[in-house]
C-alpha cells in the first residue's frame, strides 16, 4: 500500500512538473496582461525540439536551445500583441497551430533525418531513425532521498523537477516582494498608470511573455526527455491548454500553482494506474475527460462574484496598451 502510494505521489510530482513549469511562465505572462493561447504550440515545439536537439547535441545544449526557441516563439506573440496591438487570442491560437504543424513536420520520419543532419552532420545513420532519446538522469538528493515515502516522492527526480519547485518559490518571492514584481503586477492591472510612473510597460510585457515562452518550451522538453522520452506526434495532447486552466485555478499565484499541478498530475497518474489494474479499461476516455470537465466547472465557479472578489483577475488581461489611445 505504501509502495503504491509512494509511486502514485512520485508520479504526480513528475507528471505535475509539466503543468507546473508551463503554468509558472503563464502566470507571469498573464500577470503582465498577456494571455498566451500559444502555450500548447510552444510546449509541443519544446518537446519536439528537445527530441531532435538531444540526439544532435545531448541534454544540456538541447535544454538551452529549447529555451531559446521558446523565447523566440513567444517573441512573435509579444511583437504582435504588445507592439502591434493585435488580438492575443488569435495570435496565440495561430502560434499553437504553428507549433503543432511545425513539430509534426520537423519530426516526421521523412524529414527528421535531414533536420538532424543539418543540426549535426556527424550523426550516425542509426541516430537518424530512432524514435527515442536518452532520459534526463535522476539526481537523488544524498541523505534525503532515502527517507521512506518522502524521499522517493520529493528527492529522487531529475534536475527539471527540482528546478520547477525552486522556481515556484523564487517566482512567488519576485512577484510579491520585489520592485520588479510590483511593476509586473501593476502593468497587468493598470498599464497607463504604470507607464505614467516610468515603468516601461512594453518592456515588462515583453519580458513576462518571454519568461512564459521559455518555461512553456521547457515544460515540453521536460515532458519528452524528463518524463516519457519516446516521441509521439502531438504528445502534449492539450496539456498546454490544461496549464492555462491551471493558472486560473491557482489564481495567478506561483505557490498555489504547485498544488494545482500536483492535483492534475495526480489525476493523470491515477488514471494510468486504474487502467493497469483493469479499472476503467472499457472506457478510459471518460477518465481522460476529467481534467477538461474539472476546468469547465472551475471556470464556472470562479465566475461567481463572491469568489471573484477575493481573487483579483489581472484587470488588463488581454487588453493591448497604447499610450496615445488611452
Amino acid at each position, binding site marked *: 500500500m505504501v509502495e503504491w502510494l509512494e509511486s502514485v505521489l512520485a508520479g504526480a510530482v513528475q507528471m505535475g512538473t509539466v503543468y507546473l513549469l508551463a503554468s509558472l511562465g503563464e502566470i507571469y505572462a498573464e500577470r503582465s496582461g498577456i494571455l498566451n493561447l500559444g502555450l500548447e504550440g510552444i510546449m509541443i515545439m519544446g518537446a519536439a525540439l528537445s527530441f531532435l536537439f538531444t540526439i544532435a547535441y545531448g541534454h544540456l545544449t538541447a535544454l538551452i536551445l529549447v529555451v531559446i526557441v521558446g523565447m523566440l516563439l513567444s517573441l512573435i506573440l509579444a511583437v504582435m500583441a504588445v507592439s502591434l496591438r493585435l488580438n492575443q487570442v488569435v495570435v496565440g491560437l495561430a502560434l499553437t497551430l504553428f507549433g503543432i504543424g511545425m513539430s509534426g513536420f520537423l519530426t516526421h520520419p521523412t524529414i527528421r533525418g535531414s533536420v538532424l543532419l543539418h543540426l549535426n552532420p556527424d550523426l550516425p545513420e542509426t541516430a537518424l531513425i530512432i524514435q527515442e532519446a536518452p532520459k534526463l538522469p535522476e539526481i537523488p538528493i544524498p541523505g534525503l532521498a532515502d527517507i521512506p515515502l518522502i524521499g522517493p516522492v520529493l528527492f529522487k527526480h531529475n534536475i527539471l523537477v527540482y528546478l520547477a519547485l525552486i522556481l515556484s518559490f523564487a517566482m512567488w518571492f519576485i512577484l510579491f*516582494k*520585489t*520592485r*520588479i514584481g*510590483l*511593476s509586473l*503586477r*501593476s502593468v497587468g*492591472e*493598470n498599464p*497607463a*498608470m*504604470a*507607464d*505614467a*510612473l*516610468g*515603468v*516601461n510597460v512594453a518592456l515588462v510585457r515583453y519580458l513576462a511573455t518571454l519568461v512564459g515562452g521559455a518555461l512553456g518550451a521547457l515544460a515540453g522538453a521536460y515532458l519528452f526527455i524528463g518524463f516519457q522520452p519516446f516521441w509521439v506526434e502531438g504528445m502534449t495532447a492539450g496539456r498546454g491548454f490544461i496549464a492555462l486552466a491551471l493558472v486560473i485555478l491557482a489564481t495567478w499565484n506561483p505557490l498555489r500553482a504547485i498544488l494545482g499541478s500536483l492535483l492534475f498530475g495526480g489525476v493523470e497518474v491515477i488514471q494510468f494506474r486504474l487502467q493497469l489494474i483493469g479499472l476503467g479499461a472499457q472506457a478510459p476516455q471518460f477518465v481522460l475527460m476529467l481534467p477538461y470537465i474539472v476546468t469547465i466547472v472551475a471556470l464556472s465557479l470562479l465566475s461567481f*462574484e463572491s469568489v471573484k*472578489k477575493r481573487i*483579483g483577475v489581472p484587470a488588463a488581461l488581454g487588453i493591448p496598451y497604447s*499610450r*496615445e489611445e488611452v
Partner: protein
Amino acid sequence: MSESPLVLMKDIVKRFPGVLANDHVTFELRRGEVHALLGENGAGKTTLMNILYGLYKPDSGEIYVKGRKANIRSPRDAIRLGIGMVHQHFRLIPTHTVTENIILGLKEAGFVINYKKMNEEIKRLAESYGWKINPDARMWQLSAGEKQQVEILKALYRKAEILILDEPTSVLTPQETRALFRAVRRMAEEGKGVIFITHKLEEVMEVSDRVTVMRKGRVVVTKNTRDTNPQELANYMVGRPVIFEIEKKELQPGDPVAVIKDLYAMSDKGVLALKGVNLEVRRNEILGLAGVTGNGQVELVEVITGLRKAVKGRVIIDGKDVTNRSPREIMELGVAYIPPETLRWGVVPSLRVVDNLFLKAYRYPPFSKSAVIDWKKVYEKAEELIREFEIITPSPFVKTRTLSGGNIQRLILARELSGIIGGGVPKLIVAAYPTKGLDVGATEFVLKTLVKYRDMGSGVLLVSEDLEEILRVSDRVAVIFDGKIMGVFKSSEADIEEIGLLMAGVKEKAKAG
C-alpha cells in the same frame, strides 16, 4: 535678476488624426507660483500637460525645464526632471496598497522592497501636508479625496518641484476642495510650481497667481490673476459672450411621470450606493439632480432605466410599477435615456451613424416586420432625423467614431427623443451628464432641446455636476449626497451656498438656514 522659469514650453504643436490639439502653444511656469491653465473641455489643456509629462510626443516645439532644454520622451524622463502629474482619472491600482501605489516604478525602493521603512516615510510625508493616511490600506478602501492625496504624495515622494493637477476638484466636495487649496498654496510657498488645470473660473480666482487661457488648441492670454476677473476670463474661454439665459415657457408642472420611493441599490463595487432615495419628476418640469460625482447619480439613473437592479424600494413610471423590469420594457413605456459616458454606453463607435440612430428603434414597426429590418424606411427616417437634429455628418453611412462629441450627442438626442421608439413625445427623459465634454455650442443645443421637450410635456431628470447649468434650466433642484436626497428646492428660490453645503453632506446647517 531674472531666474529662469521652472518650465518653458515653446511653440508646441500636437496633431491627432483629424484634430489639431495644440497649435503653437507657449507656456511658462515660475518658481513658487500656482499657475491656472483654464479652458473648456477639448481646448487642449490636458494634451499640453501630457506633453510636458512625456505621455505624448509633440509634433514640434521645444521644452525647457529650469532653463535647460529637455527632451521628454516618457513620464520617466519627466519624473527625473522633477515633474509630477495628478490625472483627472486616478491612476491607482485598487487591489494594491497605498505604499505599493506610491513606490511603483521607484528605483530607490530597492530590489527587495523594505515595506516597513517605506510605510514610515510615506506617513511622515503625508502628515507634513496635514493628511492622515494608512499606508497599508488598499486603494479601493479609500475615498476620492484620499485617493487624490495618494496621487499627490506619489509626485511629492518623487521630489517633484513641478506639479500638474488635472481638474483636481471635479471629484471633491467643497470642503475637500478647500483643504486641497491649502496644500497647494503650501507647495507654492515651498518654492514648487503648481499647474492647475481647470475649467472653473472661481477656482482660478481663488487659488492661482497667474492664469493662462486656452481655446481650440491655442493660448489666448496669460495674465496675473489679480489683474483680471471672471467675466473677462469667461470671454477669453469661449471667444464670445456667454449666453446665460435659456428661454423657457412659464408652465405649471403636471402629474408625476416618475415616482421613486425609498430606493436602495448597490454600486458595481458591491457597496450600497443608493440608501433610500425619494424623488418625483412631473410633467412639464425639469428636475435637476445636483451633487458631486460618485454619490449615487449613475446608480439612480441606471435603476430607473432598468440597467441596474434595485435592492429595495420602487420605481413607478406613469403610474406603473417598473421596479427591476428590463431596460426594454421601461423604454417602451416612453422613457428616454441619455446615458453618461456616451462612447461607452450611448453609441457603438464602430457602427454607422444610421445604425446608432436606430440602435433601439430597429425592432419596432414600421422599421421592421417580424424578424426582418426594413432598411429603406430606416434610411429615409435617418435622413430626416439628421436634418431635424442638425447632426453634421458626411452621410448616414459613415462610422460614428468619425463624428465630433457634439454631433454624437445630437445623434443620441435624435434617437431618444424623436419618437421613433415609442411614437410621440417621451414621458420621462433621463439625462445623465448630457453636456459633459461638449463645447458651448453643443451644450446650448442639448439644454435647449431638453427645455423644448419639457415644454412639449415631458418630465426631465437632469443629472449634472455643473450646478450653474442645473440652475439655468431646471424648475426644481434636488441635491444628492452619499446615496440620499439631501433636499429639493425650487430653482428660483435656491441658495447656492446652501446647496453647496448639502452637496458636501453638511445637513445640520441647511436645516438651520
